[in-house]
C-alpha cells in the first residue's frame, strides 16, 4: 500500500517546487534529500564560522515570478535584493559600471563609445520585445514539433501566432539570436570591446562554449527577461544566500503538508510491474509511492537510480550522449575587510552588483581555447559578487564574503577528472591572482577560502561532471530535446517516474520552472493521484 502520492528524490529548489505544487493540490508528498541541508546547488552553508556562503549558485536569476506569488514565497522568508550594477575593470586602469540608473550607465558607456551608449536603448527594446516571446516558451511545457495531436498542434499554433506577432524583423532577429554567437550578435549593435565583452559573457555561463561559439547569443535575452517580469527584477541576491530560496520553497511545501527528510539518500528507484513504485534508501528502507519524481540530473536518474533494463536502447543511447560537461568552478572567500579595486577605490554601487573580470572578447575566447583542450583557463573569466555588502546577515560586521564564479574549469581535465584534487589549490591561486591584478589588497584580506572544482561539484552536490545546469544549455539539448527527443514533458519511459530537475525543459538556473511544470503536468494527467 503506497503511503505517498509522490516521492521526490532530491531536495533541490526544483524538487521542492514540485513538492510544493503537488502538496498544494492536496497530494501526499515526501521529499528525500541526501545531504543534511536542503537546496541542492541552491544552498547556503556557514562554511567558516560567521561566514555564510551561497556555496554553488550565487544569484537568483530567473525565479519565475508567478512561482513566488503562487507559493507565497515572500511569506516563507524569501527576500530578493536586486543586483545594483554590473562592473568591469580593465587592465589599462579604466572601468565600466552599468547600473540601475540608465542615465549614469549611458554616461559610463559613452566614455568608451558615444555611439554604443545610444545603441544600448535600441538593443534593450529589441531584446525586451523578444523576451515576450521567450517567456511563452519557458513558462509552458516544451512544444512537440511533428506531433499531430490536436493539443500539440494548438500549442504550436499559439507559439506560431506569438512568433508572427513579432513581425519579420524581430522574427529574423530571434532566429539570429538562436543561432549566432554572442560576439557576432553584439557586433551588429556595438563597437566597443569594453562593452561587448561583459555583455557577451552572459551567453557562456555554465556552458562549454566560448563567446564566439554560435548559439551563445541566446542567453543575452535572459538579462532582459527581468524587464518582462516587470518590477520583479529577477536578478538579485537572496537574503541569507541562495539557500533561502530553497528554504522558502521548502517552507511553502511544508505548509501545504509535504514531508521533507534530509540525510535520506536514495539508493534506487523501486520498479514493480514495469512501473516506478517507490524508492529504496541507502539504509535499506523501502518507501512506496504512486509516483517517483527525480530532481537529479538525467544521467543520475536514468543511468544510476533505475536498472537500465527498464529502458530501451534508443532512450539509453540518447541519455548517454546527453552532454553534461561541467566547465566552471567556484571560489568562496571570507574576507577580513572590503577589498577595493585599484581603478575605482572604495565602496560604491559598483561593488554591490556583479563584478566581471571580462576585459576583452579575446581574453574570454582565450580562456575558452585553453579549456577546449582540458586545461583550466590561466586567466579565467570571473564573476564576483560580495553579498555581504547588501545583506549583512551573511558575515560578521565589517567582514565580507566574496563569491567568485570561475570559468573555464573543464571537468574533463587533460589529466582526467580525478586529477582535479591535485590541481585544486593551484586553480584557486590562479583565480586569486587574476582578481588580484585588479584588487591589489585582496590577497592580504583573505581569512578563509573554499575552492570548488567541477570535480568537487560532482562529489559534493551530485552534479554529474560538475555541470551546474544538469546538462548543457545548447540548442540540441533544449526545449523538446531536453533531456531526450520525445521525453521533454517530465514523463519518462518508465511509467510513474518523472523528471523535475534542470535536466528537463526549460533548463537550469534558479528558475523553479521545471519543478513547477512537472508538478502541473502530473496533476493534469491521471497519474497525479491514482
Amino acid at each position, binding site marked *: 500500500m503506497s503511503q505517498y502520492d509522490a516521492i521526490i528524490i532530491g531536495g533541490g529548489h526544483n524538487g521542492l517546487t514540485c513538492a510544493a505544487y503537488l502538496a498544494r493540490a492536496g497530494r501526499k508528498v515526501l521529499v528525500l534529500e541526501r545531504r543534511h541541508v536542503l537546496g541542492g546547488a541552491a544552498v547556503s552553508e556557514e562554511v567558516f564560522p560567521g561566514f555564510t556562503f551561497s556555496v554553488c549558485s550565487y544569484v537568483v536569476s530567473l525565479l519565475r*515570478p*508567478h512561482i*513566488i*506569488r503562487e507559493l507565497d*514565497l*515572500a*511569506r516563507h522568508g524569501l*527576500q*530578493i*535584493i*536586486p543586483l*545594483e550594477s554590473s562592473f568591469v575593470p580593465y587592465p589599462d586602469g579604466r572601468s565600466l559600471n552599468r*547600473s*540601475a*540608473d540608465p*542615465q*549614469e550607465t549611458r554616461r559610463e558607456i559613452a566614455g568608451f563609445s558615444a555611439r554604443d551608449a545610444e545603441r544600448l536603448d535600441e538593443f534593450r527594446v529589441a531584446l*525586451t*520585445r523578444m523576451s*515576450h516571446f521567450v517567456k511563452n516558451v519557458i513558462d509552458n511545457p516544451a512544444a512537440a514539433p511533428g506531433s499531430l495531436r490536436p493539443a500539440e498542434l494548438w500549442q504550436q499554433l499559439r507559439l506560431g501566432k506569438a512568433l508572427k506577432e513579432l513581425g519579420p524583423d524581430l522574427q529574423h532577429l530571434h532566429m539570429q539570436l538562436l543561432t549566432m554567437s554572442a560576439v557576432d550578435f553584439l557586433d551588429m549593435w556595438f563597437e566597443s570591446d569594453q562593452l561587448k565583452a561583459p555583455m557577451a559573457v552572459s551567453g557562456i555561463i555554465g556552458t562549454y562554449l566560448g563567446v564566439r561559439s554560435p548559439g551563445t547569443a541566446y542567453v543575452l535575452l535572459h538579462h532582459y527577461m527581468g*524587464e*518582462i*517580469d*516587470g*518590477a*520583479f*527584477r529577477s536578478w538579485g541576491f537572496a*537574503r541569507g544566500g541562495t539557500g533561502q530560496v530553497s528554504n522558502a520553497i521548502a517552507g511553502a511545501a511544508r505548509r501545504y503538508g509535504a514531508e521533507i527528510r534530509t540525510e535520506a539518500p536514495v539508493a534506487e528507484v523501486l520498479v514493480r510491474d514495469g512501473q516506478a513504485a517507490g524508492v529504496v534508501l541507502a539504509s535499506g528502507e523501502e518507501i512506496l509511492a504512486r509516483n517517483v519524481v527525480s530532481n537529479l540530473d538525467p544521467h543520475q536518474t536514468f543511468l544510476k537510480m533505475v536498472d537500465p533494463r527498464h529502458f530501451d536502447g534508443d532512450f539509453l543511447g540518447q541519455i548517454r550522449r546527453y552532454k553534461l560537461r561541467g566547465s566552471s568552478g567556484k571560489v568562496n572567500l571570507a574576507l577580513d575587510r572590503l577589498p577595493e579595486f585599484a581603478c575605482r577605490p572604495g*565602496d560604491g*554601487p559598483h561593488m*554591490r552588483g556583479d563584478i566581471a573580470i571580462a576585459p576583452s572578447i579575446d581574453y574570454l575566447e582565450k580562456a575558452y581555447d585553453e579549456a577546449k583542450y582540458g586545461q583550466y583557463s590561466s586567466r579565467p573569466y570571473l564573476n564576483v559578487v560580495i553579498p*555581504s*555588502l*547588501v*545583506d*549583512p*546577515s551573511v558575515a560578521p*560586521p*565589517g*567582514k565580507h564574503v566574496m563569491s567568485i564564479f570561475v570559468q573555464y574549469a573543464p571537468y574533463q581535465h587533460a589529466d582526467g577528472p580525478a586529477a582535479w584534487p591535485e590541481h585544486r589549490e593551484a586553480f584557486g591561486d590562479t583565480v586569486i591572482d587574476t582578481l588580484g591584478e585588479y584588487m591589489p589588497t585582496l590577497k592580504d584580506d583573505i581569512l578563509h577560502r573554499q575552492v570548488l572544482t567541477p570535480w568537487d561539484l560532482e562529489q559534493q552536490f551530485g552534479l554529474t561532471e560538475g555541470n551546474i545546469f544538469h546538462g548543457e544549455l545548447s540548442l540540441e539539448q533544449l526545449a523538446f530535446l531536453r533531456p531526450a527527443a520525445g521525453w521533454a514533458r517530465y514523463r519518462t519511459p518508465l511509467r510513474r517516474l518523472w523528471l523535475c530537475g534542470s535536466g528537463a525543459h526549460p533548463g537550469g538556473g534558479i528558475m523553479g520552472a521545471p519543478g513547477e511544470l512537472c508538478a502541473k503536468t502530473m496533476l493534469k494527467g491521471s497519474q497525479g493521484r491514482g
Partner: protein
Amino acid sequence: MPRPSPFHPRTAPLCEALRWKDWAGYAAVCSYTTYMEREYFAFRHAAGLIDVTPLCKYEVRGARAGEYLAWLMVRDVTRLKPNQVAYTCWCDEHGKIVDDGTVWRLDDDWYRVTAAEPSLAWLSRFAADFDVTVTDVGDRIAALSLQGPRSRAILQQVGDADLDALRFFYLARTRIGAAEVIVTRTGYTGDLGYEVWVDNEDALAVWDALYDAGRPHGLAPAGLDAMDVARIEAGFIMNGVDYYSAPHCLIESRKNTPYELDLGWLVHLDRPDFLGQAALRREAETGPAEKLVCLEYDWDDYERLFARHGLPPEVCPYAWRDPRPVFDVFGNQVGYATSGAWSPTMKRNLALALVRPEMADRGSRLKIEVMVEYVRRKCLATVVEKPVFRDPRTRSLPQHESV
C-alpha cells in the same frame, strides 16, 4: 525656502541625486542616489538612517498632563507606564480625525507628543483647563530614525542603553558619545527600528557615530521615497495623503474617523469623557461609512492589461499618492485608493484604499483603476490582510528570537 535640518551638513554631500523636498518646512531628502531601492532594501536587510527632524514635537508638562492627553486622544494614555510610548490619533468633537502620532510618557508629569502636522494650537487649545503647558520643541530636537534588522546591533555599539531589554514602543534615555539622547523603539517602516532624539547641538556627533558604526553593518542613508514604500508595506497611513486633518477640510466628506481608517483599535471608549467620545461611541455601534483596507492588484490581470498594448507590466518605481477610484467587480465605484506601492519584498502591488464597509472583508474582490498607455482601465484587486509586511523581529526581544 525650506530650512536645513541640523543634519544637513552630513546629508547634503551624501545626496548625490539632488532630490529634495519640503517636509514641514525642512529640506528633506527624497533619495540619496537615483537608485532608491538600495535605501529601501537597507531598511529590510541592514539598516537605513533617515533624518526625521521635521516631525513635530511637543512637550506636555503638568501634574494633570496625562489626564489632559487622555482627554485629547482617543487612546487612554493614562495607562502608559513610564518610558512607554503609544501610537495614537486625536479627533475633533465629531470624532473626525485631526492627526496621528505618538505619545511618550517621560515622567509622571512629563509627556512628549509627536505629530505629522504642526499641532501646537490644537494641543494647547484646552490646555489651560487642565493646567498644563504645551511647548513646541520641534526646533530644538533633532531626530534620526534607524530602521532595519541591523539597527539594534548598530545602536548597541554606540550607546550604553540595554537595547536587548528595550521593548517595542518603549524608550530609553542614554548617551551616544557625549550626547544625551532618547531612544524610542518606534518607526515608520514596520521593521525592527529605533528613533534617536537629540538636541540640535549634538546632532552631527550622533549622526557620525551612527553612520560610522553602521557602515560595516551595511547601513545606508535613506530618504523619504524609500520610507514611503516601507510604510505602505507596513500598512501605515499618512496625514495629508490617506486622510486629511479634519479642521483643514472644506467639506464633511473629506473627513475621516479612526474607525474608517482602521484605527478603531486605538479608541478606548469605556472611560471618562474624551474629545469626540460621543460621536465615536455612536459610530462604534452603527459602524463606519467606509473602511481603510489594503488592496493587492491581481498580477495576472495587471499583466493582461499591459499585454493588450504589447507592454510588460510596469509599476510605479516609488509610492504613488494620486488617488484612484476603486470599483466593485461590476464596475460601480465603491471607494478610492489614496496611496500605493510595489512591494519589492513581498513582490506584490499594493494600495491603501477606503471602500464601502461591506466590501472591506479580507478576500473581497474589487477593481482599481489603472492607467495603461493613456487609457483608464480597471484591474482586479483583492482585499488582503494588513500589514502585508510583517516580521517577528519588529516586536520581539533578542532572547525570544530564534536564529
